[in-house]
């Protein structure tokens, strides 16, 4: 009987969350340490899965399947392949660093960590799900804790509005895909929600062309695709730091991944038919997101819009439906996840001390928190796609892939690189260098050891993937091959 490692990864957070709820509310440190322990377990196990995956065999590994409702063909069915293994690892990393960053939460940390872990379980579940019902089940679990996390611990000015907007938007998106999913279930005639079987169902062309937009765009809402990206910047900004890390770092990947897994992989003909629309919309994401980020005055909004832009690259890669683009998207989901987690962590550290995020008021913070400044610079370089770091490793193949489909789109999209560079440099210069205002000079202190550990982990990951891309690209490539085989080797 093999150790059910994937189930342990999926269920550890939620069980830990339940345990945390039992701890008396004044024992805050106990809460924190239990949370850290659970996060460590999840991280170690997900790293184990990532590195033990056998690329030579490829296909789905660490499979577990249990009947849930045989009459309707619903099963609890999990497995990893080259596409979702990095995302599982990403979730583990973000969860771990998120716990470290949230150490300072003093208002009901028990509830905070409990809700955060429900979210984490939902995310893990979606990534490893091989059963469509199970995917939806965990997808919804990942949506609603956001409401509470943002509205209770978020930024007072906009948290209620942002939380409600985000939850409703995401709920709509998921339900739209749900209807599509149900249509697929009934349309396949196989009476099963098993996605591997569904991918061989050979839906008719008209069926696929009709249902693909529902399924793809329903999930892509969570991926932040234009014009349904509106919830994202407000949601990012209003959320407390660890939640923003999760939100931009993992949750948006959830949407993109589900769009890939359910939309593209199960309805390949539909995907080919609609790919031009996705290409255009993703391109808008990339360029428009970068432009808007450039004119923001609130530090966090810059990062929020930059996420919209970078997720556009992911979806651009999806739409290419070729090997390079998909490899790039796979790596970009991971790389951007780590990078944006770092960004939001840094924003949080600055805000906690300065109590403002207006770029005009900040300045000279590298004197007070040099480690943070360096970490942010590294993150900024990744964002710009600077070679030697994971951002380049991810973006380059995407551009290669787009080039093969429509070179002009690649040329337009590359404009965003320059825009990104300029606003990143501007932010680094304005926030971390330059003169520091009087009051900050007195009040602002350095960050804690835990914060530094979290930042270091994130930086090391980005540098490692950047310096040695094969540590990730081979794995992703094997996953991509499988996807392409669904298209008849396109």
């Amino acid at each position, binding site marked *: 009987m093999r150790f059910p490692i994937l189930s342990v990864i999926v269920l550890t957070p939620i069980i830990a969350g339940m345990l945390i709820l039992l701890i008396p509310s004044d024992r805050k440190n106990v809460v924190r340490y239990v949370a850290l322990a659970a996060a460590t377990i999840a991280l170690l196990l997900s790293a184990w899965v990532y590195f033990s995956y056998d690329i030579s065999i490829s296909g789905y590994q660490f499979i577990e399947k249990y009947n849930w409702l045989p009459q309707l063909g619903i099963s609890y069915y999990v497995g990893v392949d080259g596409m979702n293994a990095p995302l599982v690892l990403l979730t583990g990393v973000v969860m771990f660093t998120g716990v470290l960053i949230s150490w300072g939460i003093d208002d009901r940390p028990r509830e905070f960590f409990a809700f955060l872990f429900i979210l984490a379980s939902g995310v893990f579940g979606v990534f490893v799900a091989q059963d469509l019902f199970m995917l939806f089940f965990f997808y919804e679990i990942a949506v609603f804790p956001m409401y509470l996390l943002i509205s209770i611990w978020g930024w007072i000015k906009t948290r209620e509005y942002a939380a409600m907007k985000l939850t409703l938007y995401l709920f709509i998106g998921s339900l739209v895909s749900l209807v599509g999913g149900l249509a697929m279930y009934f349309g396949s005639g196989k009476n099963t929600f098993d996605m591997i079987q569904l991918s061989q169902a050979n839906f008719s062309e008209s069926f696929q062309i009709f249902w693909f937009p529902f399924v793809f765009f329903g999930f892509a809402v969570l991926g932040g695709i234009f014009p349904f990206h509106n919830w994202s910047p407000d949601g990012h900004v209003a959320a407390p730091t660890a939640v923003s890390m999760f939100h931009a770092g993992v949750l948006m990947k959830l949407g993109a991944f589900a769009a890939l897994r359910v939309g593209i992989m199960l309805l390949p003909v539909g995907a080919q038919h609609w790919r031009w629309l996705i290409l255009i919309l993703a391109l808008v994401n990339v360029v428009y997101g970068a432009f808007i980020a450039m004119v923001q005055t609130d530090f966090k909004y810059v990062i929020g819009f930059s996420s919209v832009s970078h997720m556009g690259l992911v979806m651009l890669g999806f739409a290419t439906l070729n090997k390079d683009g998909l490899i790039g998207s796979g790596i970009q989901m991971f790389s951007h996840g780590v990078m944006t987690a770092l960004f939001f962590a840094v924003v949080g550290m600055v805000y906690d001390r300065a109590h403002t995020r207006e770029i005009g008021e900040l300045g000279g913070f590298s004197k007070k928190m040099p480690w943070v400044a360096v970490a942010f610079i590294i993150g900024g370089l990744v964002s710009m796609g600077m070679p030697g770091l994971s951002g380049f*490793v991810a973006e380059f193949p995407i*551009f290669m892939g787009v080039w093969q489909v*429509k*070179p002009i789109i690649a040329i337009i999209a590359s404009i965003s690189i320059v825009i990104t560079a300029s606003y990143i440099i501007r932010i680094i210069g304005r926030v971390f260098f330059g003169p520091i205002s009087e009051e900050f000079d007195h009040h602002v202190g350095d960050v804690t050891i835990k914060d530094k550990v979290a930042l270091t982990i994130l930086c090391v990951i980005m540098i490692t993937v950047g310096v040695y891309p094969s540590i990730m690209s*081979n794995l992703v490539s094997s996953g991509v091959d499988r996807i392409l085989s669904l298209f008849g080797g396109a």
Partner: protein
Amino acid sequence: MGFITNNILSIILFSPTVVALVLLFLPQGGKKLLRWVTLLGCLIPFGFSLLLWFSFKADTPGFQFETQTLWYGAISSSFHLGVDGLSLTMVLLTTLLTPVAILASFSITERVKPYMILFLLLETGMLGVFLSLDLLLFFVFWEVGLVPMYFLINQWGSEKGERELWGGRKVSARTYASFKFMIYTMAGSLGLLLAIQMIGVSFRTYDLTKLFSLFPAVTQLANIPLNLSLETVKTIAFWAFVIAFAIKVPVWPFHTWLPDAHTEAPTAGSMILAGVLLKLGAYGFLRLVLPLYPQEAHLYAGALAFLAVMGIIFGALAAYGQDDFKRLVAYSSVNHMGFVVLGIAAAAYAAGSKDAVLALNGAVLQMFNHGLSAAAMFFLVGVIYERAHTRNLNDFGGLFPLIPVYGGILIFTSMASLGLPGLNGFVSEFLVVRGSWPIFTVFTALSMIGLFFTGAYILKGIKKVLHGPTNEQWVGHITEINLREIIVISPLMFLMLWIGVWPAWILGVINSAMQVLFKG
């Protein structure tokens, strides 16, 4: 021993990074420790490159000491290193200049640790460009070199001076200079990036050794945008490559970032910037543009030569008009690098001919020589600035009796820069002129005018600083050049003399590479 010879290039390439990692763990306050660890650490790649030099077989064509390992297999890019005569020369230059620059940086007192780490990372970046035999890897190292230099200028650059940005916002001069440097170069490399993508997509490999034979002979490219003809696409790609490198060299009129960057950079930064970084551009021309685009290069060689001559003449004229000593030296780089480009243009036009080889020899040697003399000149400017806290030529005057040793060194270095026979500058400039004359007679003749003005500005510089009536304010207030500084400049002066008197040791290596590389 076998390990070393098998991996010597990797050792040279990564030892600066390893030293940087070591520095990371050293205490921030121990400035002396940091400086000496860096200096000694820099001598490691230098030592190995000497070893490499002596193990290199000049007569064997092609790349030696090749190593290739898995890097980014999913898109067919590998970690592929190798040297030939051209890159070996550049590697030697880099590994020589870096310790010299570090020694020159001993006077930096603020935030020594990040400074040293950035310098070491910069060295790895530059070495990577020279050693790389994979197009994507080349690009990676090309961009990697930008970031440390940006921060070096931005954080340790000259403190005085203000510039105005669009919108009337005032920023410090060094902020302006570093930003301009970064954005200019990045924008230039954008075209390069797109062209590289196109190549990668079409050939499914980035290995230069393969591309050299595949690309020029290609009859079909994948996914040509907008239905252009193959010729047009290749031309566009050619110009994309050229512009990226032209910005770096710099070729007139893409040189406008250079005076600001060089002037505002800290002394050692300017030394490396002028000494090595500019050579990256020229190297790009030689390693990539000429071999991959022989037809296009031939077609547009005339334009390139024209631009080169403009650089020579205008660079010299601009240098002559400067009051800021450092800016004068900065423009002199434009002037000297113009000769490099002239030589390259000549070779592009008449590839394979004996004259072309001569011109190329001159160009490459000029790269090496200019590296030495520019680094030396910037260093000397830095020496006097540290004492006088001004770079304005009009503030000086008649300093020779006050600081005779400095004066002597300054004159020596200036003469090398000017091209005095017996010193290195003459050899390379002569070769370039000799090689280009049969090919681009008119342009070469015009460049002689440039040489004339070179002499003018050099002598002006010397005169304003050293000769004439002694400026009273410096009496008793200016110290002589010290021992450390003499040690910094000695190897450079030694090489200037040696190459000037007996250039065969280096020309031999260069020549054999040039002969093999461009057979037409």
